[in-house]
C-alpha cells in the first residue's frame, strides 16, 4: 500500500488489467444477482443486458492487458 501511494508510483498495464477484469466480473455478477433477487421484475431487462455486455467487454479488455506486465498504464 505504501508503494502505491509513493510519489513516483504509476499503475501498470497488468494492474489496470486486474482492475478492469474484476470490475467486469463484478458488473456481470450484479446484473445476474439483480435477476435472482427480483425475479418478478419481468425478465432480464434491457439495462441488465447492457450491463452484462459492458461487463464482458471490461473483462475481456482487462484480461488482454495482463500479458503486458509492468508497462506503465
Amino acid at each position, binding site marked *: 500500500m505504501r508503494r*502505491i*501511494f*509513493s*510519489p*513516483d*508510483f*504509476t*499503475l501498470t*498495464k497488468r494492474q*489496470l488489467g486486474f482492475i478492469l477484469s474484476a470490475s467486469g466480473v463484478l458488473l456481470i455478477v450484479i446484473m445476474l444477482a439483480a435477476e435472482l433477487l427480483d425475479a418478478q421484475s419481468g425478465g432480464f*431487462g*434491457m*439495462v441488465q443486458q*447492457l450491463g452484462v455486455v*459492458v461487463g464482458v467487454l471490461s473483462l475481456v*479488455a482487462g484480461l*488482454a*492487458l495482463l*500479458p*503486458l*506486465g509492468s*508497462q*506503465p*498504464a
Partner: protein
Amino acid sequence: MVPQPALSTQAARLDLGAWISRILWALALLLLAAHLIVYVVYAIGLMRFPFDYDQGEGFELVDTILFSQGEWPYRDNEVYPFYASNYPPLFHVILVPFVWVFGPAYWYGRLAGFLGTLITATAIGWAVQREGRHRAVPILAGLAFLASNYVYHVGPLFRQHMTMVMFETLSVVVLAHVTTITDTRRRRRTMIIGLALLLAAGYTKQLAVATVIAVFLFLFVRNPRRSVIWGVGFAAVAGGLFLWINWATGGEWWANIIAANVNTYFPSQFVGLFRQWVSLHHVLIALSALFVAYELYFARLSLYSIWWVAAVANTALSGKWGAGDSYFATAIAASCILSGIFLARTLRGAWTFTPTPITRRFAAVQRWGAAHTPQIVAGAGVLVPAIYLVYGLSVIHLPTEGAIFGPLADRLGLESSYGERYAFYDAAGWVEGYATIGHIPTQQDIDAGWEIVDRLRADPRPAMSEEAAFSLHADKDVVTNPTQLKNLYENDLFDPANLIAAIRAHDFSVIVFRAQFYPPPVLDAVYEAYYPDEVIEMNGFNYEIWQPGPDRAVRDAAAAWLADPAAGEALTHTLDLPGEQAQRWLAHLLARHGWERVGPLNQPGCTADAYQQAQITIRAALCPSDPGTALTLAQDAG
C-alpha cells in the same frame, strides 16, 4: 536525360493523388464551413426570438433574474409562486450582469450558449493541434463538433448544458499533460486551473460528474497519491460549496437539485438515442474507439481516452425522463478530439508502438508500415479529408425556408422532416427523446407569442403558464416550474394541496399549456376549474389558453348532478360567462364527465344539445341571460 517511364508514371500518380487530396480537403472544409454558417444563422434567428424556443428555457431566465435580485432559485415549491430551479447556479450567475444592464431577455443566454460552443470547438482544435501537430485537421475537428446535429440543437439555447461542456472540455485540455510537468509550481498551478474549470462544469450542470470521474481516474492511473490528495481537496471545496448552499436555502438545494432529478428511466429511449448518435457520428466514434484501444495496449492512456470512455458511458443517462440528445454533447466533444489526434497522427506517419508481447507478434506488420510510411501518408492525404466529408454529409441539417435556405434546400432536394409543422430538414430523423427543434422561428411565431402575452395582460391576476416568457413579458409573477413539480411529486417531495386550492379558487387569470407536464392532481384541478378557450400555434406547438370556468359552487353543483342525473330535478344556474365561452366550458365539463354529444335539440333562443352516457340521455341548454348565460341540465332530452 530522358526520365525512366516507371518513375514518370509514379510521379504522375503521386501528382494525381495530391490533386485529389487537395480537392477533398477543400470540399471537406467547405462542407463543414457551410454547417457553421447554418449554425450561425440559426443562432441569430433564436437570439431574435423573444419567447421560449425549447421547453424550459424561460425558467433558466427566471433563475438568472432571481440571482440578479440576490435571491436563491432553490425554494419551497409548496407556496406561491410554486417555483424552484433544478439546476446548479453558475450559468445563471454568469449572466446576472446582463439582467442588470438589459433587463430580462432571452438573447444573452442564447448568446452565452452559442459562444460556449465556439470556445469548445476552439479548445478541441487546440488540443488536436497540440497532440497531432497538423494545420488542417484541428480546424476540421473543431468544425466537426459544431456540425453535429446535437450541438446545433442545443448550442444557441438559453440553457446551461453547452456551458457545462465548454468547462469540461477546457478542464480536460488543461489537465491532459499535468502529470508530465516536472516543475512543481507550474504543475500545481495547472492542476488548480484545471480543477477550477472542472468545478465550474459541475456547478453549471450535475451531468459533469462523468468528467470529474474521468479526471480523477486519469490522475489515479498516473499516480494514485496525487489523485487522492487532489481528490480530497476537490471534494472539500465542492462539498463545502454544496453544504453552504444547502444551509443557505434551508435544504431546498438538496431537494431541488438532487432528489428532484431522480426520474423514471426509459431504457428504450437511451438505446434509440445511442443508435442515432452512432449512425450520425459513426466515423468519429470508430476512430475514437480505435485510438482508445491503441492507447490501452500500445501506449499510455491519455486523459482524452479516459474522458471519452466516461462520456460515452454517461450517455446512458439520456434514458431519463426529460433527458435527450444533448446528453451526448460531451461524448461528441471527446470524439472530435480523439478522432482528430488519430487522423493528424496518421497524416504525419507518427504512430509509435511500445514494445510489448502484443507488438512483438505484429513485428512484420510494423516493419511493413515503417517501410511504406510515405505511401501510407499519401493515402491518408486522401482518406482523412474523405472521412470528414462523409461525416459532414451524414449530419446534414438545414432550414428549408427563407431567402437563401429555401432555394438551397430545393436545389439539394431536401424537404422538411416535419412536414407542415415547421421548415427544417434533419438527416437524424426522429427517435424518442430527440428534440424536435432546429427550425428558425418566423415573424408569425413572434406575433403568436405576443398574442398569448395579450391574453395574460387582459387580467390583473397572475397567470399559470407552462413557459415563463409570457408572464415575464406581461410583467407578472412566474408561477410554477411544471417539470420540477412533476419530478418532485413523483418522488413524494411535493404536496400540491396549496396549488390545487389556488387553481380551484381561480387565483390565476389564465392557464397556458404546451405539453401539460404538471403532476396529475394539478392537471385534474385545472380540468375541473378552467376550460380550454383557444389554441394559439407558435413554433409548431399548440399553446392552449385555459380560462376560468364558473365559480366553484356552480361547478360543484353541475358535477354532482352529472354524477347522478336521475336522482334530482333539472339543474339551473346562471353562469358569469358570455354565450360562446359558456358553450366551451359546458362542452369541456360534459366531456370530462364522460358524456358524449348526441346531437342538437330545438330550443328557440338557446343552444341546446343532447348528451348520452350509459343509456341515459340528458339535455344541456344555454340561454342568454342578463347578466351572463343561463345553464339548464335536465333529463328530458328524449
